[in-house]
């Protein structure tokens, strides 16, 4: 007989993990939406943020609010600085130049984290219990609920920002056509900086929830790889797409792991989302919610 409890457990877990993927994917989407740059260092952003918060908490014994504040502020500064130093000189260069720059950056950051803060896994304890909340047949760790709530909150906030606020509309205008945006008096470079800073904020939050879940070390950067199936499924520039893509990836991962792993001996979780991504690229290359026009760069 079909085990509904088991299925429900996989689904709930998939949804919560999926929303946490959405949070990280959001950082990627924000940058792509505003600047057309593909950020291959998103996972490393999350790792660096995780390090910052974990070190502030563990090494300096800062209270949680301060550690989170430091993480957020540092990542905002990091976003602005990165745009100014690395990406601004690349404006008007081929897209490949930006891609290569972010790939290089990801390698640098992956080396930089352990170099400065050591290679051991640091805990990032949040003042919530480890005891799973039992809710009928389901039991879920509180950290996942926190992660999911934070994701939804920020996804909604950024969704509102882009749709309704004047700054958000200006940012979309910049993404649509940089030169025309300039002619409208929009300071394009400032919006680029803002987009990277927003990616920094989202990465800091991602670093906290993921770091708390997995512990902070260099492997935390690997969650960044999950960004690609998420954004390709959802659409590179779509916030609702990031939510939906995250949910799909979370669910597929868990269901695949739950039903296929016992037969093949594990590992399905790691490749199922990518398999889905490849299929999605064949069917709908611009994602579920992506802009349907083909970009002519």
């Amino acid at each position, binding site marked *: 007989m079909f085990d509904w409890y088991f299925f429900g457990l996989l689904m709930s877990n998939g949804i919560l993990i999926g929303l946490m993927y959405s949070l990280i994917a959001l950082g990627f989407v924000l940058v792509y939406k505003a600047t057309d740059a593909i950020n291959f260092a998103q996972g490393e952003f999350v790792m660096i943020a995780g390090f910052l918060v974990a070190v502030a908490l563990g090494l300096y014994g800062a209270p949680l609010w301060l550690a989170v504040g430091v993480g957020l502020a540092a990542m905002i500064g990091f976003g602005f600085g990165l745009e100014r130093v690395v990406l601004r000189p690349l404006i008007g260069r081929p897209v490949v130049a930006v891609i290569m720059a972010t790939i290089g950056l990801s390698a640098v950051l992956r080396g930089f984290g352990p170099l400065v803060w050591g290679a051991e896994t640091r805990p990032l304890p949040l003042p919530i219990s480890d005891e799973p909340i039992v809710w009928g047949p389901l039991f879920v760790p509180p950290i996942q609920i926190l992660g999911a709530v934070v994701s939804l909150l920020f996804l909604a906030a950024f969704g509102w920002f882009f749709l309704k606020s004047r700054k958000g509309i200006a940012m979309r205008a910049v993404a649509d056509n940089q030169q*025309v945006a300039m002619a409208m008096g929009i300071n394009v470079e400032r919006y680029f900086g803002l987009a990277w800073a927003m990616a920094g904020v989202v990465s800091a939050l991602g670093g906290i929830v993921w770091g708390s879940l997995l512990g902070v070390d260099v492997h935390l950067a690997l969650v960044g790889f999950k960004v690609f199936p998420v954004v390709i499924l959802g659409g590179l520039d779509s916030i609702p797409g990031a939510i939906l893509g995250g949910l799909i990836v979370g669910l597929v991962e868990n269901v695949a792991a739950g039903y296929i792993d016992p037969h093949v001996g594990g590992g399905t979780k790691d490749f199922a989302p990518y398999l889905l991504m490849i299929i999605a690229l064949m069917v709908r290359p611009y994602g579920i919610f992506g802009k349907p026009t083909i970009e002519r760069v």
Partner: protein
Amino acid sequence: MLALNNIEVIYDGVILVLKGVSVTVREGGITTLLGANGAGKTTTLKAISGLLRSERGEVTKGSVEFSGERIDGRPPHEIVKRGIVQIFEGRRVFEHLTTEENLIAGAHIQTSRQRVQEGIERVYAYFPPLKERRTVQAGYLSGGEQQMLVIGRALMSHPRVMLLDEPSLGLAPMLVEEIFEIVQRLNREERLTVLLVEQNATLALAIADHGYVMENGRIVLDGTADALKENADIKEFYLGLTEVGARKSYRDVKHYKRRKRWLS
């Protein structure tokens, strides 16, 4: 009010595009800049609006002055704030934004929300078709609506000078007339100064009060619109009129000589 004094523009550090261009735009008037493709008309506009920099061009000699202050080399967002807005040729709307969002983006330099709202109402009053299409993605508007939208979007910054680049490009003649009428109304009712770049000399000279003719990065002719309309060269090369009864062979010789004089 707006004056270009003998400016020279170089792209990429080597390509000389404008070779000493002087243009004066009178306050409250419509000035037109005529010329063939590649004459340097659009470059002239970009030299004013500061957008040259984004294409790796720069003003290397001469100066651009607006209300007595030099503005060459200033970033484009600052020039918009001073009251000069450029409208590109080819109806470059923000395709993925709705009509109304395009207008809001155009009002970026406005600080008060109320002024943005007033601006939107003003644009809808001048261009009623846009109001009906306010929630449509601009990429799906018709060509005429898009041309209206780019003019309306530029109005949102409440400019004193509008640099208008070939609004007639690719539009049906009737629509072109409509657009030109609105430009004329804006000039009269809002005291908007216009610098109009056109290839369609008949239309441009009909609404302008002063005109310049450009060729190969130089101004080769200038005068009041009425004087230009009567100029034999303009008649022949831009208005397509020929001297009735003249013998073709003579004209061909003269044609050649006149071209040569301009190009030297």
